Every structure is written in C-alpha cells, then in structure tokens.
C-alpha cells in the first residue's frame, strides 16, 4: 500500500551501526526496503513536534507494525487498538529514541510488542475467545512455519534452526504471546524449570549464533 512492498534483491538495513551490519541478513527483503536513514530522520523530526514527519513515518511503517500487532493479537480489532496505542507512544516518546542503540524499526517493533503484551495480559484476565484459544493451541500457523516459507537463509532463521524444537517453540511463543513463565508452562505443557531452561539456553545460543 505504501513504500513497503517487497523489492527482491534489496538488502539495505535499518541500521548502519557496525553491529547491525554484521547481521546484514536478519531483515527480510519485505521490510528492508523501508530505508533506515529516512526513518531515523523522520523520528528526529517527530521529536521536534513535526506532525507532517509523523504522518510520513506512519505511512511508511504502519503496515509492517500492523502485521506485528496482528500476529500478537490474532484479532484485527485488537490489533488496530494496539497499533493506535503504539503510534501515540511513538509520537510522545520520539525524543527518547536512541539512534546509537537500536535501528528505528526495531525500536518501533518493540513499542508495538509491548503495547500488544499489555493488551494480551488484559484480555487474558477475561476468558479466552474460541479464536484466541485456537491460536494458542493450534500449532499449524506458527511463526516458525511462516519463517520456513521465507527461508532466505537469513541469519536469525539459520540460528533458529540450530535450536532444539522446544527451545525454538518456547522462544517464538513467548515473543508473540508475551506470556509469563507460568503461562508458558500451561501452553507448552512442560514443568516451569524446563520451560525456563529452554528459553534461557535457547536465547543464549541464538545470541552466540547471531554474533558469530
């Protein structure tokens, strides 16, 4: 819909920090076509209160962030609320964005996920709808399988593949569902100690693999 359509062959990065350059393939071609320098510039303008820059930023990033919200929430209405909250937060805290610390899209994805996690926690206090329960227990449309369809040998996917099945599944579940340890115990049907060690070891291996 806006500039975010896939442009095969483009491997430009959100961040030109050396750390990010080393992992040059973490980003898929789908979103790497949104230029990191431009997003960084727009965020700086937002920090100065430039509404026009904010609209441009929204037009460039909202479709990708909506996909993230949708993947977390599994429901369009809730995902719209999350996206709205996320962009209000992005506008209000643009001045806190630290370009030396993270790529602009990473920062915005983190804000969106945090808003989604807040919402999921709120909804979890209510009984789950059938749709949500299905999303939790139906293993078919998992992020990992979606990754398989985009097997462009990106660094993260390669590293995820080095993990054991349950390490991988617990990380992906935690990332998109924002579940606490005890909730993961229920979802993954394993004892707390086991789930913790899957995630801890999985995360450490992932980091080592990405940094190697």
């Amino acid at each position, binding site marked *: *819909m806006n500039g975010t*359509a896939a442009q095969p062959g483009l491997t430009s990065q959100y*961040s030109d920090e050396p*750390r990010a350059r080393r992992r040059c393939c*973490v*980003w*898929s071609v*789908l*979103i790497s076509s949104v230029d990191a320098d431009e997003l960084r510039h727009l965020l700086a303008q937002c920090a100065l209160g430039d*509404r026009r820059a904010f*609209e441009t930023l*929204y037009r460039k990033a*909202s*479709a*990708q962030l*909506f*996909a*993230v919200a*949708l*993947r977390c929430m599994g429901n369009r209405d809730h995902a*719209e609320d999350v*996206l*709205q909250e996320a*962009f*209000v937060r992005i506008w*209000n805290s643009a001045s806190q964005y*630290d370009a030396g*610390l*993270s*790529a602009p899209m*990473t*920062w915005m*994805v*983190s804000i969106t*996920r945090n808003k989604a996690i*807040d919402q999921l*926690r709120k909804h979890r206090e209510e009984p789950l709808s059938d749709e949500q329960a299905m999303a939790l227990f139906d293993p078919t449309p998992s*992020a990992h399988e*979606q*990754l398989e369809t*985009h097997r462009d040998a*990106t660094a*993260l996917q390669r590293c995820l593949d080095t993990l054991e099945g349950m390490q991988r599944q617990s*990380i*992906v579940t*935690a*990332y*998109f569902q*924002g*579940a*606490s*340890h005890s909730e*993961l115990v229920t979802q993954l049907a394993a004892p707390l100690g086991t789930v913790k060690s899957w*995630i*801890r070891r999985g*995360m*450490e291996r*992932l*980091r080592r693999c*990405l940094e190697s």
Partner: protein
Amino acid sequence: MNYLQPELRRALAADYAIGLMPSTARRRFEGLLLDDPGLRAEVAKWQESLVGLTSSLAPEAVPERVWLNIVARIEPQRLHVPPRRPFWSGMRVAALACTLLVAIIVGVIYNRDTPAFNAVLVADNAQPALALQAFERYLKVEPLALASVQAGRSLELWAIPADGIPVSLGVLPDDGEGRVELSARQRELLGAKTTMAVSLEPKGGSPSGKPTGPILYKGQLASL
C-alpha cells in the same frame, strides 16, 4: 537483588526483551533502565536479535480510521472561549451590542461568511439541546438546553460521517458555548450526511479517541 552481576543483567534483559516478565517486574525493570545505559544497551541487543522474528510477516493494509484516531489522540482540539468579564453596565453592553451588530452586518456583507450547514442536536426525549452552525473554517456552538455536567466530566463533540466512525471535534466548555476551529481534514467530514453527536466523557475528553460514555445529544447536519 544484585543488578550489577553481569550474568543476571544479561538474563533479565533477555527476559524483558522477549516479554517474559510479569507486569510488576516489567515496570520495575523499566525504572532501572532509565538510569542504566549499560542495561539499555543489553536490552537493545536482545531486541535487535529477536526482531528478525517479525521480518517474515507480510505488511498488512491498515484501515484509515486508525490514523484518524491517532490524530484525534495527539491533537486534542480545544474550544476557544473568551474569558468571562465582570458585569458591565447596561449602556456599555448596549453600545457593544450595536457595534457588534454593525460589525456582523459588515462582516456578512463583505465576507459572506454564512454557515454552510447547521444542525440542532436533540436529547433522547427530542428536546433541542444544542445548535451548531458549520462555517467555512469553524463550527459555532450554542447551547439551548444542556444538562449540567458533573465536575470531573466533559461533553465531547463528534462528527460521524457516512462510514459511521466518530471523529472528535473537541471538548465543549462547561456552559456549551463557543467556537470549534476546523482543520482541513475535519472540514471534509462535514456534509449533509454527517451526524453530529455529543457524548459524556471523562474531564478533558475521551482518552481513547473514541466515544466512551453515553451519547447525550445528536442530530444531522443540513445544508442551508
């Protein structure tokens, strides 16, 4: 807990980045992040590692109402109400009234700033409550019989175009009288199919950009 231990810091940053912390622990951790650049860097590294999980998600078209809601949230409209003056003598009021009348007549003749639409908003019992006139760049709001609003509440004015999604035009002053300046986007919303509504909201207007309280008055715009 000793937050200086590197393994613990790394593990906590990982838990935070992936979303494992319960709400209270998360808030506490965010407090620590504020004064600890090293910890922020640790979290940023984890976030950068994990963000690739979202990279296979195809962009999804976002309905335009999301943007309109965001704009309503970040640009709260306020009515411009002149401050109240102490009581003036009858002569001065009369003189002022005459001057205003002349100014209005001259203004109307030279600017032709006539309202394009008007509406009378009625309560559930069909009692007229509020008159609106939509001019080129602003809305004029005049109370007819407004219910009194409790302290801590505000009346918020909404335009509901044909698509049915309410857009905030601003919070009414307590006595209901004033002008709402219209942005270009808001002007586009106003037409013969637009319903105008007033809802009861927390002080300062709806926090969510959508009506949260009951609709007290409504009415449709009509062209003159």
